[in-house]
């Protein structure tokens, strides 16, 4: 990777003495789906809007393919496709006219390209109908079509799943996967829906109060020793005592008739053997992956406002 598609350098936004976004610095490489996670009011939307120039930066710089958004806005924007919240289209125009409208802003988008994108999103049957007769899901697809017409290097989605039903969310997720794989587009998604982000993103940045708390790779997180092992036995105190000799007692937790243990998945056979040898009746033993939500709450100190 020679250059990151998006580079943020000390991006800061202050409004009336209040710091909304505080010194954000990170890079997004090509072909990555990058999630922006944080409670409402954490500064996700503000950051995204600063990247696309809707909101001015108080300090810092955003570079898209090395081009400064502030100094060379038009050039930087040729690399960007955006879906900002619910894609509001011109309702009195047809879907095709809407696409023509957005295509005209870029150089060299042919009719063939428009038709190709329309077909790719399965809109060909109703593309010549007025957008006011479209369902929300179709508008969302038209929004994606508009954003990818000019083959951008960076796709920006601000709360894209707001107002979509589960099928629509799933559809959107599949498109994003396809786009990143087939066209090598990098994607930034902001959302407060954790489960969504978990399914969509390669890496997430967690921000709170305008500050970057953490960036983590979800693949690593999944593989890492962040698994909880739930053990159901007849004699909990005995099991606890037994396991305390092998595992750190601090990593154990009794909840009702269950014993919770944070350990590698690979430890399960070992634990089972120990319990069986000690003649403790084992009702069940299984691994639960620590969800992003748990990790998120851990990082933000449980101040999740959804």
């Amino acid at each position: 990777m020679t250059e990151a598609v998006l580079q943020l350098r000390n991006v800061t936004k202050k409004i009336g003495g209040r710091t909304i976004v505080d010194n954000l610095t990170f890079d997004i490489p090509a072909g990555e789906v990058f999630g922006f996670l944080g409670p409402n009011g954490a500064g996700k939307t503000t950051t995204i809007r600063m990247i696309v120039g809707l909101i001015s930066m108080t300090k810092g710089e955003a570079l898209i393919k090395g081009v400064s958004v502030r100094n060379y806005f038009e050039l930087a924007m040729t690399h960007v496709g955006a879906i900002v919240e619910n894609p509001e289209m011109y309702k009195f125009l047809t879907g095709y006219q809407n696409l023509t409208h957005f295509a005209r802003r870029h150089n060299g988008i042919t009719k063939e390209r428009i038709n190709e994108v329309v077909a790719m999103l399965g809109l060909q049957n109703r593309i010549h109908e007025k957008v006011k007769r479209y369902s929300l899901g179709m508008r969302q697809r038209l929004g994606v079509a508009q954003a990818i017409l000019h083959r951008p290097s960076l796709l920006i989605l601000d709360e894209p799943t707001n107002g979509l039903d589960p099928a629509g969310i799933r559809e959107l997720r599949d498109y994003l996967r396809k786009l990143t794989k087939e066209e090598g587009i990098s994607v930034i998604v902001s959302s407060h829906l954790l489960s969504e982000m978990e399914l969509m993103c390669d890496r997430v940045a967690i921000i709170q109060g305008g500050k970057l708390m953490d960036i983590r790779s979800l693949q690593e997180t999944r593989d890492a020793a962040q698994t909880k092992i739930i053990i159901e036995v007849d004699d909990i105190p005995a099991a606890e005592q037994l396991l305390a000799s092998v595992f750190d007692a601090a990593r154990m937790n009794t909840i009702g008739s269950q014993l919770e243990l944070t350990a590698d998945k690979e430890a399960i056979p070992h634990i089972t053997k120990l319990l069986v040898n000690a003649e403790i009746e084992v009702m069940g033993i299984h691994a639960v992956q620590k969800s992003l939500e748990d990790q998120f709450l851990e990082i933000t100190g449980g101040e999740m406002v959804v």
Partner: protein
Amino acid sequence: MSSLSKLIRNENMKIYMRPRTWIMIGFLLLTVALLSGLMNWEASRNPSTDWEQSLTEDNNRMQQELQNNQDLHENQKADMTEQIKLNAYYLEQGINPKEPTLWDYVDISSNLIILVTILTVIIAADMIAAEFSWGTIKLLLVGPASRTKIMVSKYIATMGFALLLLLLCFGSAFAAGGILEGFDGINQPLLSVSESGIVQQSPMILDILPKYGFAVISLIMYVTMAFMISSAFRSSSMAIAFSLLFMLVGNSVTMLLSSYSWVKYLLFANIELSRYMEGGASPIRPEMTLSFSILMLVIYYLAFQFIAWLLFTKRDVAA
């Protein structure tokens, strides 16, 4: 990077694909048709078969008044002398001045430019504010076109719409006049009395174009003001309401306050340049001159453009 001409095509598409625009155009054409019909009906109601007799009578009456009435003002005397000369010319050439010609219809249509102005003000006020109302502003601004470019394209498209309405107004009145009175009236000259006291002819269009010209100046001012208001408010209904309010109330308020000398600095006191022309109403303040008003209009125009630009390009789009 977007080319300006393509952006203008986009804005035009957004103007002309809305049914509202065509209702406006239909309304304008209907008004021209109604006015022309009314004029034709009025002329046919008073058939002027004995026009030669009535012109002779008029001239005799004015001659007598000139000789007998000592209280007549100098201006009135001059007007009457001119009218007598013109009437004599009509009689001599066999032209019935009461018989409307094609050009009378076009002349009347210049009064409808106020309607053109109102319709264009509605479009202009909606131009930026509507994008905010629709929520499309975000997608519009996130593209390879600077905000200045987008604003310029919107302004040019608005002015294009004004030009279209003006051409339609002129053209439909011309057509109505031609259909109702015959297109041979096109060569009808304008008769006037020169300073040396001779009846002279000049092309009719030269009399009508200035009327359109003055009306277009006020149109440009009101539309630019509406455009500025549009970039200030982020709701189209507010922008339309305020633009029309300013336009309609501004004039009467200026009249009411005309005893104060600072009134001359208001836009509405300067917007009617025809006041300085021959036969126009006098300026609002006696000390006002044509060059003063032109200067004020230029200052207002630049201020409107600058404020609109500032409001549109420098503010954050948050909602």
